[in-house]
């Protein structure tokens, strides 16, 4: 499930942020000056994959609430949106939202690095909270089962 979430987010994101191209040739290209941006995308996608898969496990098997799933999603969306400027899809999305999209673009681009850092922080925090909850909930269920 992690791989599904990771690749499901990673591939569209690298297309949106113009590291993956389909015309005139199929190309994956990360310039030297874009390495840090690219790595932050990889980290965000990996954390999102982890958080989402663990949240879904909790919801499906432990009947937990969706709160942590929501916070994980917030972290992902912030991380995904930051720096997604100026390619064709990004512009098309902006134009749907009009002036709000324009303001969002400027915020997401001007504060790209802080937003990515915040996104990673939210996802890491969410991950640790889920791990803590999983340890507790699984232990309770195991004890109940044993008893």
């Amino acid at each position, binding site marked *: 499930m992690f791989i599904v979430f990771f690749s499901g987010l990673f591939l569209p994101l690298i297309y949106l942020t113009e590291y993956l191209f389909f015309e005139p040739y199929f190309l994956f290209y990360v310039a030297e000056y874009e390495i840090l941006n690219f790595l932050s995308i990889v980290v965000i996608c990996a954390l999102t994959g982890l958080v989402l898969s663990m949240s879904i496990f909790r919801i499906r098997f432990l009947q937990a609430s969706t709160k942590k799933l929501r916070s994980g999603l917030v972290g992902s969306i912030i991380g995904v949106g930051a720096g997604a*400027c100026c390619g064709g899809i990004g*512009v098309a999305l902006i134009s749907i939202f009009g002036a709000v999209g324009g303001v969002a673009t400027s915020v997401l681009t001007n504060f790209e690095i802080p937003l990515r850092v915040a996104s990673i922080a939210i996802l890491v925090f969410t991950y640790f909270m889920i791990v803590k909850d999983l340890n507790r909930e699984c232990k309770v269920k195991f004890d109940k089962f044993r008893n």
Partner: protein
Amino acid sequence: MCQIIFKNENCVFFFKTRKHNGFMNYFLVILGLIVIFSIPSVFGEEIPSWVKNSAGWWANDSITDEDFVKGIEFLVNEEIIQVEKNLIQNKTPEIPSWVKNSAGWWADGTINDRDFLNGIQYLVSNGIVSVSQDSSYDKLFIGGFDLSNAGPFEGNSYAQYTIIMFSDHQCEKCVNWLSHEKKIIDEKLIHSGIAKFFLLDYPMLGEDSVTAAEASYCALEQGNYFEYLDILNKKYAGIQNGWASVNALVEYSKTLDLNFDEFDNCLFWDQQALRVDYNKKVALSHGVVGTPTFFVIGPDDQIEKIVGPQPPMIFEAVIMEMK
């Protein structure tokens, strides 16, 4: 009314009759100029000597202001006289007397060609002599792209391939591409004479994008286009956060050898707004949605679109495929 055109005895006889009306006189002036224009020895950077004769007749009121101006218009448009054509400042209806005096002194040999040309330049700059558009602003179509309002291209005019980049000055990826990948393309394709490079505006990230594009053309008017673009790339700081506001753009101009008032007026009065808008329409008409977007045009008008900040090897591969 034009009475005497040439001092040559035969021609004087032909033109002296008053039966010719004004239109015929004007026609004969131009015809005479065309005949002389066809003589190869007339061409060259120096002012042809027969122009001096005309100047002398005008200074002596042998020909009217209107006829002299029309003659000069023809000479300037045909580049027989070389002056700056695209510096029209104020429209002045009358020819100042000092210009006529200069023409007379020049005909007498009292002043040199340059001083006479300064007078002609004044007539051009003040709209008294109407000139056609500078040849660089003539319609320029390459591969169906109207580049007549683009900035000057980089590379050789005889380069077979053309690379057109649609860019926004507030687009980070455009700025990064121009600062990095473009240098490799300069080395491999542009300086080697394989391709020439045009930069067109597609301002889509806010008002400051439009203003920055206008500022670049205001700098172009004073011959500092590429230098100003360099400054814009170096000063890039985001989208709509003030680095490309009018005040900031005017400040940047101070670091260049620009006439500050002229630049300020150009930007303040949006003198280049139509040009920027025109380039944007060119982009939209060719399906440009985001920036950077490139088009590589081959010698047979083959067109390949490259979307996004792709590496130089893609451009080389496209050109290889076109060959």
